[in-house]
């Protein structure tokens, strides 16, 4: 699999179906996209267009009754290129949280209500760096043993060191992790991180909870962050803060971010490149300024036109999102498209590079 040097995540021809009581939902149909190192890729689309499921598939977290039926997902890790779609659970556990992290939409629901928030971030650290912490704690005890002159005390320390489940090692590890979590929280702009560590989710506001979730996601320094509408359920002012935070983190840590949203305003402000999805397929991919200046796909055009503007009549896209158990034949947008042609009903348009770095899937542009 040949990937360009700066591409860090690649999705090829992904097919995902849901086997429900009412039939098979063809949620994602031949979706392809890639993410470059250090860029923010925005994924835009209406609710139900498959953007969330696509992102979940990068970690093989598609929920039951969904199944990945085709296509591949490739991720560049420190150990080289891995094909996520073919990995088993154990290896996936090594990738999740470590190379790719997800921030979910509802800030509160991603946190276990019965656990202190600090412990939940610590959990992430311990899962992937547990052995590091453990060996560090052992080294500290070893040092103490060396420095200790009294024989009795030395013996006691050595016994404590040998026994694997001993309190002391665990306590040292806990303290170390706690320190790291608190400094992480400070970097997230969390006021009073010492206190916040011991709080429970229901004691925190929406914005603080989202910071916790972001901290949890970034704890192990992943290269890829998937943000699934992280600000949708927050107040506008808090939203602005979180967006600011994400922008800062991205530049400081050189994160590659897949930012999912239905809000074009956030896309304009945050993203470098944009993927437009509709009803489970990709319509258009372009660099953000190019997309806004020169939208090619009829759906993209309609989306941009439907953004409310003062002194202009309200324009919406006619029709509704199709039922994905029986999606429209051919191009899924054709029933609502003002430029629909005979071809659109029969064949599915392929994603083609029309101009430099500007891809469209529409028969209007097919030669």
């Amino acid at each position: 699999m040949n990937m360009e040097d700066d591409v860090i995540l690649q999705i090829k021809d992904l097919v995902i179906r849901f086997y429900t009581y009412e039939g098979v939902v063809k949620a994602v149909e031949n979706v392809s996209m890639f993410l470059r190192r250090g860029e923010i890729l925005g994924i835009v689309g209406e609710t139900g267009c498959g953007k969330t499921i696509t992102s979940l598939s990068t970690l093989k977290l598609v929920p039951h009754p969904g199944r990945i039926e085709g296509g591949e997902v490739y991720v560049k890790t420190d150990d080289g290129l891995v094909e996520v779609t073919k990995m088993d659970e154990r290896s996936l556990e090594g990738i999740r949280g470590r190379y790719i992290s997800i921030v979910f939409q509802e800030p509160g629901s991603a946190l276990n209500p019965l656990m202190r928030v600090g412990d939940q971030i610590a959990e992430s650290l311990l899962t992937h760096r547990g052995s590091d912490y453990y060996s560090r704690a052992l080294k500290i005890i070893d040092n103490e043993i060396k420095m200790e002159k009294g024989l009795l005390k030395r013996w006691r320390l050595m016994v404590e060191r040998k026994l694997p489940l001993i309190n002391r090692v665990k306590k040292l590890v806990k303290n170390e992790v706690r320190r790291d979590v608190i400094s992480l929280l400070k970097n997230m702009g969390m006021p009073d991180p010492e206190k916040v560590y011991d709080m429970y989710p229901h004691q925190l506001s929406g914005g603080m909870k989202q910071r916790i979730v972001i901290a949890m996601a970034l704890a192990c320094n992943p290269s890829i962050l998937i943000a699934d509408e992280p600000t949708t359920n927050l107040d506008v002012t808090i939203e602005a803060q979180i967006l600011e935070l994400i922008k800062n983190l991205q530049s400081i840590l050189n994160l590659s971010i897949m930012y999912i949203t239905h809000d074009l305003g956030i896309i304009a402000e945050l993203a470098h490149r944009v993927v437009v999805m509709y009803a489970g397929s990709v319509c258009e991919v372009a660099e953000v300024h190019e997309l806004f200046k020169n939208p090619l796909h009829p759906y993209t055009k309609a989306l941009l036109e439907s953004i409310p503007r003062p002194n202009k009549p309200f324009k919406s896209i006619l029709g509704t999102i199709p039922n994905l158990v029986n999606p429209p034949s051919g191009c899924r947008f054709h029933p609502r498209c003002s430029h629909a042609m005979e071809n659109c009903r029969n064949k599915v348009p392929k994603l083609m590079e029309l101009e430099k770095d500007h891809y469209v899937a529409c028969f209007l542009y097919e030669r």
Partner: protein
Amino acid sequence: MGSLKPIISELKFTFKRIRQSPLSIAGLIIIMFYVALAIAAPILAPPQPDRDPYIIPNYGISPIPQPPSSQFIFGTTEGQYDLYYGCIWGVRTALRTGIMVTIGVLIIGIVIGCIAGYYGGKIDEIFMRITDIFYAVPTLVLAMAIIVLFGVGIDNVIKAMIITGWPTYARLMRGEVLRVKNEDYVLAARAVGCSDYRIITKHILPNAIYPVIIMATMNIGNIVLAASALSFLGLGSPRGYADLGWLISLSRNWILGLPGNPFAFWHTYTIPGLFIFTFVLGWNLLGDAFRDMLDPLIRRR
């Protein structure tokens, strides 16, 4: 009261789900079988003339139960009572008990629950405290106490179970009334000046009553179970009455069988027990399926 189309389509979906779940179909079949059995009892096991049909005829005085034979399909139990007759009419008794308790519990529960929920305030407080007190004693124990008070017999079993059962439905009704009370159409009716009675009967009741009725119907299985337990303990029907619990209590002396054949009297406990078990199972299967279907989370998986 609003458009009917969504209600109809939901009902259609409900029936489709019923058809799709084999367990609920099984439950439905079992229940229909037993209801048919109960109705057809006079034909299946003709009662003796000039006698209360619920009294099981006995043919002899020997205490030793006789195994199934051509004369007695299920054999006889201690005292030579015809087990077949007893089981058939026993099912009828069980169904009758279940229905009467359900009706009684619903009437009392709905009325009290409505009043408590609608008027709120002090009345509601008193209601809640009273139900708390009822809840403090396990239902069977309370029923036992009531029966000892009023006397033994199947009618008192029914009364006792109504007395111990109404708080649950009253509370459920109250909850539903509270939920519906704040809906817009109720506020509109009050704004127009409808009397309390009218609001309750025409607006609140029809919308609040379904969960209560459904829960009560689903509970018939447990009612029969409890009633048969009371009969087993000797607090229900008198000797000779067609009651499945009583029939099983007779079999206690015969569990050991005969020397060399420990299961000689298997029919005395297996057969009536199977009747009760499958009867309750049928109700619970259907009740479970109903509950699963009404739960919006599981409805559309």
